[in-house]
């Protein structure tokens, strides 16, 4: 167990270093950082001074080491566009994205898992077929289009719900939350649904496929031959075995949601990291891109670690040596 965790941990660190290398290369070699930071009127001497200050004249290895060391403290310098510290910009935007993502994942799982189980158990039922058709439409609808259609319908035509922004937020120790005000909750509805629909359809299809696979196994047939109750066969034996591989996917989904938030945030002008990032891409604001990349990578690595632990807890074949 300890060996397993250490191994995974080392792997995680390695992944982060590789991503850091990419981020560093982007920062250092895409365009000249100095030219990006200063205006046209800055003199050559001033530029050289800045270059010296930034340590750009040191050897690459030293620079990368410094980059790593600062990245560990989450310092990525000054945004070219906003002229503010990147870490402050991201910290300010992080709560919005995390709240949106978390609500979406919960929504996607809470609706997706029961739907997936249902479609697997009643494979040929009418409702199951309807679910499957809906899920197919779901995967065929681009997230931004879902958002636009929801805005058109609930925002423009019915005028029920707000279509942009976060509404009123409450600041709790630096963390701004929209979950505690009525307008904040209202503003969350459309973006959360938009972000959840695509994930939800994926979850439905995945659970269904996995469960159908499990239902075909010999041990389920043996359960039936022993006369166990259908409920027990479906939920105690089949569902449990289905969830083992699903854990991984759900973990990855959580990461995917954070990235997909970019689109949702753009459509709804949601003031999160995604919006910041997409603006950074269009304006080539490299420090923000690098920081975002590192942050997302960290999220993924942590999620993956948790998933591995969960696997360990759920599957006795990993836990107990034969």
């Amino acid at each position: 167990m300890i060996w397993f965790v250490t191994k995974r941990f080392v792997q995680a660190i390695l992944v982060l270093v590789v991503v850091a290398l990419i981020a560093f290369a982007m920062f250092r070699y895409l365009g000249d950082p100095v030219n990006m930071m200063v205006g046209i009127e800055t003199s050559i001497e001033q530029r050289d001074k800045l270059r010296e200050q930034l340590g750009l004249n040191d050897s690459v290895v030293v620079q990368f080491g410094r980059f790593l060391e600062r990245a560990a403290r989450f310092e990525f310098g000054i945004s070219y566009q906003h002229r503010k510290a990147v870490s402050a910009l991201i910290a300010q935007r992080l709560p919005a994205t995390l709240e949106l993502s978390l609500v979406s994942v919960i929504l996607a799982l809470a609706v997706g898992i029961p739907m997936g189980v249902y479609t697997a158990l009643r494979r040929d039922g009418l409702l199951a077929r309807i679910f499957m058709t809906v899920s197919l439409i779901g995967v065929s609808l681009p997230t931004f289009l879902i958002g636009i259609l929801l805005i058109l319908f609930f925002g423009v035509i019915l005028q029920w719900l707000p279509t942009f922004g976060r509404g009123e937020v409450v600041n709790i120790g630096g963390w701004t939350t929209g979950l505690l005000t009525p307008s904040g909750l209202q503003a969350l509805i459309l973006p959360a649904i938009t972000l959840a629909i695509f994930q939800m359809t994926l979850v439905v299809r995945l659970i269904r496929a996995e469960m159908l696979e499990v239902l075909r196994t010999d041990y389920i047939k043996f359960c039936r031959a022993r006369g166990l109750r259908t409920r027990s066969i479906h939920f105690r034996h089949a569902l449990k075995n289905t969830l083992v591989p699903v854990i991984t996917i759900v973990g990855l989904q959580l990461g995917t949601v954070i990235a997909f938030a970019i689109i949702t945030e753009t459509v709804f002008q949601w003031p999160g990291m995604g919006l910041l990032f997409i603006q950074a891409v269009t304006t080539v604001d490299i420090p923000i891109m690098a920081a975002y990349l590192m942050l997302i990578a960290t999220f993924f690595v942590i999620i993956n670690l948790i998933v591995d632990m969960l696997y360990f807890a759920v599957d006795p074949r990993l836990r107990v040596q034969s």
Partner: protein
Amino acid sequence: MNAPDEAGIDNEAARRPAGLLARLDEHDMFWSFRHSPLVMLAALVTLVMVVSSLGAPVIAPYNPFDMASISLLDSLLPPVWIDEGTWSYPLGTDNQGRDMLSTILYGSRISILVGFASVAFAMVLGIVLGLVAGYTGGWLDAFLTRIADIQLSFPAILIALLIDGVARAAFGGEIGEDRTAFGVLILAIGLSFWVQYARTVRGSVFVEKHKEYVQAAQVIGLPPFLIVFRHILPNVMGPVLVIATIQLALAIITEATLSFLGVGVPPTSPSLGTLIRIGNDFLFSGEWWITVFPGVALVLLVLSVNLLGDWLRDILNPKLK
């Protein structure tokens, strides 16, 4: 264990009339195609959309890029069934007075071409790397698998955005020329999709290479190159075909998304995603058709391709039989 044996087939009932359709019906794939109306419809829609968009210069009533033919006086006209609509522009016009039907046809053309090109790129790259990794194994396999694992944990859209961003920075902020922009876009989408093929092919190769027909080829003395391409490749193409279909839909969505975010195709050659982005600005002022029609075209296309992909997967999955 429950599978009945073919030996027991009632020969009278199994005898079929001759004829082309009947003979084609003997192939399970064709039979299943003919017996699922939805799949046939999807195939028809896909075919019509591909043909009409590729033939856009011939079919479209106007050339939306020909400045001479568009008039600002005709801008923001609604579709024909709403007051003020005219048969000259059956689906209405956009803010610059371009015919929506024509822009959609031209836009689908770009979406479909970018989709096909990036899938083809991802497929070739993925298949080759998957074959090599799967057949040789060892450190090369470990290395490729590790890269694939890392990349797979990042969503395709993010990878594509990053590649696009990097390219943008490398080209100095603005990607001016059309051809470069398309190249970057196809590269970005393709590079974010290759992993799926590589993993699937690698997995299949692992299964296939332990099968005895591969060992038989080795015993005959065939070199690895021939074994991989003549024996293994044809046997792993089934799942690749399924992925390619599903990814074509995904690639079209990804392109549309990137274009919607403003980092996709150049504004001078708008794709469906660009059109939706433009229309989005007019959503609140009531000119919904500028967004909705390109959106409908996009969904129809993607849905049809997805339906075909789903059907292919079920057909080619031996476990479901």
